[in-house]
């Protein structure tokens, strides 16, 4: 893909990068939302220069010596200049402090292995220790197959950390972006106290192809899209990308008001 004239993956229209940036990476021709690298999200959501990353050096170790996994990790690290599929840290949004985790599509499709589970858990524990809310921008194909059952256990680890946060009257806000599937949906993604989603994002537990193969029929139009989940009562609202920062800022502001006995 040309860096100066990226193409919309849906309608194939080329856009001049600075126009695309100005439009929050939404195709002006067909309205498709381009998938965003985590560092671009930071600039879009956090107040200027407020983001401080932590735990950026935690790395996967290929504990199962799984076929081709080491190569895949090395390639992802080289391409993204990130060490894993999520970046985490603390920031301000419209002046309000929060921890924030942002998942990156380029790193094995944002899948969760030991490192993603550990970084999300530390993010939630940092929020707890510092009495500030957490925000996680989700993008994930699910639990990372290459770390086997260790990946699966990250679902428990992260969900237990959300419970601890909530038991101390602190919120988690999740933003589900395309795609949010599998073990990440079935853990912290669906545990947001407020769950936001981007328009038309694919959100589900099982992948559409697996469902089609299981039931032997094609799926209805719009199935597992953000609008479908809203209709079925699974999420709170669909937010346009250009509005996201404002909505998150308002959520932080409302939740900043707690009775003294809750502190």
């Amino acid at each position, binding site marked *: 893909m040309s860096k100066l004239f990226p193409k919309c993956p849906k309608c194939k229209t080329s856009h001049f990068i600075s126009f695309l940036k100005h439009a929050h990476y939404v195709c002006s021709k067909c309205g498709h939302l381009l998938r965003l690298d985590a560092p671009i999200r930071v600039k879009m959501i956090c107040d200027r220069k407020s983001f401080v990353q932590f735990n950026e050096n*935690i790395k996967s*170790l290929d504990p199962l010596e799984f076929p081709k996994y080491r190569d895949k990790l090395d390639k992802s690290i080289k391409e993204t200049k990130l060490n894993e599929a999520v970046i985490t840290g603390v920031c301000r949004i419209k002046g309000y402090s929060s921890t924030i985790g942002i998942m990156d599509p380029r790193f094995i499709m944002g899948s969760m292995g030991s490192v993603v589970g550990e970084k999300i858990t530390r993010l939630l524990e940092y929020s707890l220790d510092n009495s500030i809310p957490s925000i996680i921008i989700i993008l994930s194909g699910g639990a990372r197959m290459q770390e*086997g059952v260790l990946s*699966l256990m990250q679902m428990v680890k992260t969900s237990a950390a959300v419970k601890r946060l909530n038991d101390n009257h602190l919120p988690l806000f999740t933003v589900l972006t395309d795609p949010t599937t599998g073990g990440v949906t079935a853990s*912290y993604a669906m*545990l947001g106290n407020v769950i936001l989603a981007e328009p038309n994002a694919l959100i589900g537990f*099982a992948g559409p192809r697996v469902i089609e193969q299981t039931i032997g029929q094609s799926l209805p139009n719009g199935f*597992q899209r953000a609008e479908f989940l809203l209709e079925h009562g699974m999420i709170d609202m669909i937010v346009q990308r250009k509005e996201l920062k404002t909505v998150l800022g308002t959520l932080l502001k409302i939740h900043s008001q707690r009775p003294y006995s809750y502190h």
Partner: protein
Amino acid sequence: MSHTEINKTKAMDIVRLARHTKRPTTLDYISFIIKDFIELHGDRRFSDDNAIVGGIGFLENIAVTVIGHQKGRNVKENIKRNFGMANPEGYRKALRLMEEAERFGRPIINFIDTPGAYPGIGAEERGQAEAIAYNLYKMSTFKTPIISIVTGEGGSGGALALSVADRIYMLSNSIYSVISPEGCASILWKDTRKAAAAAESLKLTAKDLFDLKIIDGIIKEPGNGAHEDHKSTAERIKSTLISAINELLLIEPSTLIDQRYQKYRKMGVFSD
């Protein structure tokens, strides 16, 4: 045959045993182990999911809540039981029964045997992911002891939704995996016939999971496997349960919850 080839045969053999149609099911174990068992039904929200069964009774003289995935032995039973693949209402029924257990101070025993959560249209519409996530969330802080035993297939999120516990055991021919060997082979090599190699790579046997420090113990099956002798398999499970429960009942609830959190907190392998 090379050393790795021998191992490959082994993992897939265990997968086959874990799926053996003559293997005892949750209701079989309950009939051997639990006295005065009363099965309870329904999630009080949508329906009763026959892929998960649960109820109350006595383990020796201790009142307990028992829940588990339920597979069938033949086509007719399996249609009723949906091959042990639960819909959201199954996980919500399980949660309801566990909340009752906590309310009345009963230890919780969960039997795990499922290919996975059911991938269907209705399941997605009714929030399969939310149902699983919410069980993980709630189970992390139940005040009563939870013991889970993987008796057959521990299939991904569908297994996990019942298996958050203070002690996790696996039968020696059971498996626990993030994805089925067939599914993994299809993603990795675009060829489901390579399932045996995938089974090996996934490290899904009881021994693998014990080495990875995920489970607390392995319950050895009699003879060539549980399918040959339901009764002695059940007896071995029973004695494991009794000693674990007696140990866990001595722990203060707040300590129990903290130890459960730390148990999962430690899972994962990485460099820092």
